[in-house]
């Protein structure tokens, strides 16, 4: 496969492996924290997006039921929470002492640091950072640009931030509309916040791109990054890299052409870029937007990035619509500059049909599976939208990340629901089987098994209920025991935005997917959550489940549960 013609600076550049930062990994990765105090520092717990917390010793299938488990408190926030809540235990928050802290970022461009254990004892945020200055600096109204109000009504912070405990810093991308006189600009900024105070770290923020109206930034190439329409969707990824003391931040964007940007987490300087389309309009849908229901950007423990794109034209050279691409950050030793080089890729054989019909492969995030042994031990589980017109048998693609097979080169297929998925799966190795939990649209959560023989062609377990808009599950377990699958159900008609129905949290036994609990079971609406957003992932840690909604952070745990 040829190099990317724009971002590739030199074919002779040595490949510098990207090492996943140790504190973000789970399998094959050592956490600096004691097992009793896990943290959640990135979307879906680790860079592979397994969605699992294997250090949960409080919540078990025995005590998670409506008699002993429920809503314990909530915090109001001023905007919708599309990001996944992040968690740092036992953090010294200056004069406020030590707290387990839960962090929430909202679409109204605010970040909250909240006590994770009690809103009664700590009703006010430990700190709170507001990136706006109305009326001149506002979160971007969703109707700026065509057809972008799938997030509604404001788009301020959508990408789940990432936390680096090595320098006590949270990295967050904020999108604003800024007015000076009659001139309206749109700005994407990368902020580095001290997680103990909420203050900007030295050198922060960095302007990713600031442009008037429909203008944009080229980053030295022919395709323009237009912040007016550019929505950051996937959670930020922090990966380690020789020469970068605090690692490299990877961020993906949708909204016309899909973009991937890499920033030095220490200096907040742009390191490299990648775009998934040449931006030329053709007969079809999309430009390879990078979103994946918030989970499109992943990395394996060997240091490779895996990024899935939405519908768009594909040519395997510069246009990467509906593809799962392996990208390597590569140093040009002559210039000292870096580029993101496509090293391998997988594209479904029905890509042309997907492009014609607007059928994103990248509506679902990839799951990088732990090594399973066998002939192809390193697998990726990749869902996506489905349509019988393109594929009579709707399928999930199982891809060998050591040899991704290019067009139609999947290792195997697993059956899925007729509409496919707009979600990210989760993984758990129980004592008896290794499970992948996947929540497709209008379908139950289904468990597939994976072993040295590969991924099962059909699901082996399923929940008793379906999820209208799919679901991105999370798993809590104590190693290979007490596995619980947690899943959020948005029950509003997907066309009704922002939606008024409460999001419903379900818990299932990880070994058989029988339901343990849901938030509608307790009498008198005791556990009712706030109104739902889309693509939320629950954060399960240290005996509690944190659920972001349109108006509040809801916290579930062992009762007493106030009525």
């Amino acid at each position, binding site marked *: 496969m040829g190099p990317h013609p724009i971002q590739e600076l030199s074919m002779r550049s040595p490949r510098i492996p990207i090492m996943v930062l140790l504190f973000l990994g789970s399998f094959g990765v050592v956490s600096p924290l004691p097992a009793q105090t896990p943290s959640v520092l990135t979307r879906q717990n680790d860079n592979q997006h397994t969605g699992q917390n294997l250090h949960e010793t409080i919540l078990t299938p025995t005590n998670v039921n409506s008699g002993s488990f429920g809503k314990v408190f909530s915090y109001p926030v001023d905007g919708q929470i599309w990001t996944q809540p992040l968690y740092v235990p036992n953090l010294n928050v200056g004069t406020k002492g030590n707290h387990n802290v839960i962090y929430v970022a909202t679409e109204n461009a605010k970040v909250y640091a909240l006590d994770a254990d009690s809103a009664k004892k700590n009703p006010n945020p430990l700190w709170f950072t507001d990136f706006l200055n109305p009326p001149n600096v506002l979160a971007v109204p969703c109707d700026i640009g065509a057809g972008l109000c799938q997030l509604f009504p404001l788009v301020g912070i959508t990408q789940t931030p990432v936390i680096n405990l090595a320098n006590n810093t949270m990295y967050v991308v904020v999108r604003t509309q800024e007015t000076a006189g009659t001139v309206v600009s749109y700005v994407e900024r990368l902020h580095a916040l001290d997680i103990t105070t909420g203050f900007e770290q030295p050198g922060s923020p960095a302007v990713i791109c600031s442009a008037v109206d429909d203008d944009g930034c080229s980053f030295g190439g022919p395709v323009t990054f237009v912040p007016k329409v550019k929505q950051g969707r996937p959670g930020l990824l922090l990966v380690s890299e020789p020469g970068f003391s605090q690692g490299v931040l990877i961020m993906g964007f949708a909204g016309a052409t899909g973009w991937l940007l890499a920033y030095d987490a220490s200096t907040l300087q742009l390191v490299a870029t990648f775009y998934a389309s040449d931006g030329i309009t053709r007969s079809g849908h999309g430009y390879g937007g990078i979103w994946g229901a918030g989970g499109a950007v992943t990395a394996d423990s060997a240091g490779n990035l895996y990024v899935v794109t939405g519908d768009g034209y594909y040519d395997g050279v510069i246009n990467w619509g509906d593809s799962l691409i392996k990208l390597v950050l590569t140093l040009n030793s002559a210039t000292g500059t870096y580029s993101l080089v496509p090293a391998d890729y997988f594209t479904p054989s029905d890509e042309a049909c997907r492009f014609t019909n607007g059928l994103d492969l990248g509506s679902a995030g990839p799951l990088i599976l732990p090594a399973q042994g066998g002939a192809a031990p390193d697998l990726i589980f990749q869902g996506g939208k489905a349509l019988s017109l393109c594929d009579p048998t709707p399928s999930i693609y199982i891809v060998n990340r050591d040899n991704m097979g290019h067009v139609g080169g999947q290792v195997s297929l697993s059956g899925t629901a007729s509409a496919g998925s707009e979600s990210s799966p989760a993984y758990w190795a129980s004592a008896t089987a290794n499970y992948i939990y996947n929540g497709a649209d209008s379908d139950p959560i289904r468990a597939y098994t994976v072993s040295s023989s590969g991924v099962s062609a059909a699901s082996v377990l399923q929940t008793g209920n379906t999820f209208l808009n799919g679901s991105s599950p999370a798993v809590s377990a104590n190693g290979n025991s007490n596995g619980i699958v947690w899943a959020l159900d948005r029950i509003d008609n997907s066309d009704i935005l922002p939606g008024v129905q409460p999001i419903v949290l379900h818990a299932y036994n990880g070994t058989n997917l029988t339901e343990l609990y849901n938030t*509608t079971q307790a009498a008198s*609406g005791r556990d009712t959550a706030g109104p739902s957003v889309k693509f939320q992932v629950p954060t399960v840690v240290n005996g509690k489940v944190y659920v972001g909604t349109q*108006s509040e952070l809801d916290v579930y745990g062992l009762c007493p549960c106030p009525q």
Partner: protein
Amino acid sequence: MLRSVPNLSQAFARLTLVFLLGVFALSLPATAQTESTIYSFTQHESFWPEGGLVEDAGGNLYGTTVGGGTYGTGTVYELSPPAKGSTTWKQTVLYNFQPWGTTGYTPSSELAIDTKGDLFGVTWAGGDARCHCGVLYELVPPAKAGAAWTHLVLHAFTNTANDGRLPNAPPVLSSSTIYGVTQQGGQYDSGIVYKFVPGKSGGTYSVLYSFGGNGDANWPNGPVLLDSSGSLYGVTSLGGAFNSGAVYKLSPPQSSGPWTEFVLFPFGGGSQSSGITPVGNLLFDSLGNLYGVAESGGASQLGVAYELSPTTGSWTQYVLFNFSKTAGSAPLAGMTWNPNGSLYGTTSAGGSHTHGTVFQLTPPTSGGGLWTETLLQQFTYANNGGLPSARVLRDATTGYLYGTTYNGGGGGCDGDCGVDYQIIP
């Protein structure tokens, strides 16, 4: 306001007919009527009219959009009838909601209008600096035509001291008092009924009732309905004995003390044939029977229109019509009386184009039993809108119907931007 009376027969006969007719409700094709789109919303102005329309004495219509406007967080707009010699309705944005400060944003229901032309509504977001959970507002027309309307926050919901949050239904005006509900908040975080009495120093706000005690109704959905004794009636989409919603009555104290709530009917029992998830407004007839819709349940699990009749010591529910894919499905708003005793309403989906309908339900000519549906409009989405989510407004003078669709009609929005429509029955 009490309306003319559909025939009321003996309960037993009605029950028998309901049982015998089962799902075989009559649904008739549309008769001759004229539907037209009187305004198509666009992405760069305002879009997604979620609530319905209200009308002033001059025939001007008023509504809200949840999206668009100067700040992208919704508008209040006026739609004026065509001038002489024209067929074009004129749309004017009266107010742009701001996503900062304490004035509230994302209007979440249709408006109420008083005799002076003041408009009243609620927002889903903004308001109190900590809670950000919506406001009750008033828009006062300018003294001079064409000048700006004045926006007043009558109450910012706080979710403290048993206050509510997330108001989701239009306020109801009764002489000098405003009644309303919030979806959540209150003692059990399951919604409240509130009362606001405007006054010179800003008015007096009080919570009349917190939903959600053990077995209680919760999550009020539509506006309240007043009877002549001052009691309030409404629906909740959750709670009740089967946690599938309920119709409630809230009675004022004899002298002082708390208001008293009664669950008149819990939805969801048995096979859910009575419907589940009641939504929208209720209506009275002159005999004191209540009429409403449920979003789901019924013979096809796609919603019902129902009647609740008071009997000694209890209320009895009758299904008037079972919605279906072809007859329209999933009504999201209540109904409107036609003085001839029929009912108008909308379904958010179904019909021949699957994008919703405007229906008319006509009672049997004698005896009880299911009502007959006439489809007045089956939305096509692209041409004339889709996903009608609000009740219809009937102009008392002309008998014309006016309403909104949340989606469809073009305009560039995701899901299209919605329309305002007129039906001449």
